């Protein structure tokens, strides 16, 4: 195996995108929890976003493919559940990319009690606060549906988790 540092690995992981929201890398999403070299193998620890998220399997496959492409053959992907993934781990640049993509980024959650604070969601198109929730559940597990009452555009909100 080529001699490389952990930061080289992160550079490669930066190119692996969420298959459902391709503007976000898995680093933006905050699902990569650890990268470690172990003798002659490389261990990548990731955590699932939602328990039933069908993208997780594809993300694993894409991580392996991206690393293989750069010469890493002996890679283990370890899944951890604790601490559970939270949208607070989304990077600021990730949130910005979401907004540009037309998805309202999540509020900060901090505690489980504030998980459901989903008032005052800002329209990602016209920045209006005059928005209305259409449904708690959207086209993927991580999104809710909203509509802007000013520009009238419907939009997705990446809900707090």
């Amino acid at each position, binding site marked *: 195996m080529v001699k490389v540092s952990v930061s080289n690995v992160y550079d490669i992981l930066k190119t692996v995108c969420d298959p459902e929201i391709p503007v976000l890398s898995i680093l933006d999403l905050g699902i990569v929890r650890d990268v470690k070299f172990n003798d002659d193998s490389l261990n990548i620890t990731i955590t*699932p976003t*939602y*328990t*039933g*998220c*069908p993208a997780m399997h594809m993300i694993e496959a894409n991580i392996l493919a991206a690393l293989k492409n750069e010469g890493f053959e002996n890679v283990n992907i370890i899944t951890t*559940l*604790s*601490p*559970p*993934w939270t949208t607070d781990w989304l990077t600021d640049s990730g949130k910005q990319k979401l907004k540009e993509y037309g998805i309202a980024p999540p509020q900060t959650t901090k505690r*489980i009690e504030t*998980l*459901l604070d989903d008032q005052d969601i800002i329209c990602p198109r016209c920045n209006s606060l005059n928005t209305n929730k*259409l*449904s*708690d*559940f*959207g*086209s993927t*597990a991580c999104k809710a*549906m909203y509509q802007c009452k000013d520009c009238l555009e419907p939009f997705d909100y990446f*809900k707090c*988790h």
Partner: protein
Amino acid sequence: MSDLKYKYFLRIADNAMILGQRLSEWCGHGPILEQDMALTNIALDQIGEARLLYQLISELFPEKGDEDKIAFTRDISAYYNCLLVEQPNGNFADTIARQYLFDSFNFHFHQALQNVDDQRIKEIGAKCLKEVTYHRRWSSEWIKRLALGTEVSHQKLQDAINKIWKYANECITPDALDNEAHANCLGPDINQVSSIVSEERAQLLDSVGITVPENTWFLSGGKTGSHSEYMGYVLAEMQYMQRAYPDMQW
């Protein structure tokens, strides 16, 4: 201890799996598109939780086979979900009544699961609690919307509650296995969960003018493998592929 763990974790897993299977039947049949998606999103979360638990069970008890074998090849009496989750979807109000009664239990159960000693079940519980929080809000809101909507929607919800009420309390009535699990710090004290859930249900239903039936007897049996007549049909559909093509992959 190992038999206790196997059966107790299966209870939690089977509740999630069978309700997920039931909700999946709504796919393409929801009353409006948004709610069709909500029902199937919740189904996905439930099946996701079931999967985590079946994977854990398979890891702890390798002789039981892999997650698919555990999920799809047991006979009816080896499923330990409560009777509530296997009840048919009926109309939208029936589904909402079933979902709310289950979510009100499931939310407080997962919260209480945070105090047990077993690290693995606690981790899965913490992960799923976030999802269940959304489910509970969704079904509570629909209870209000149907109860306070039109005369017809109110009546349909009242009928639904009347019909399903006899299944409402199995999940919050501790039996020998629940007590043993609690004594071994594997599971929460169901008596404690029960009082919170009963109060919450009574308060919500009362606040929107839905009358809770007066019967004080409740059906039970699912938790020990004695199921209602509906369960066989659920399994027939759910297990078809694995039975017809054993060990299939795709």
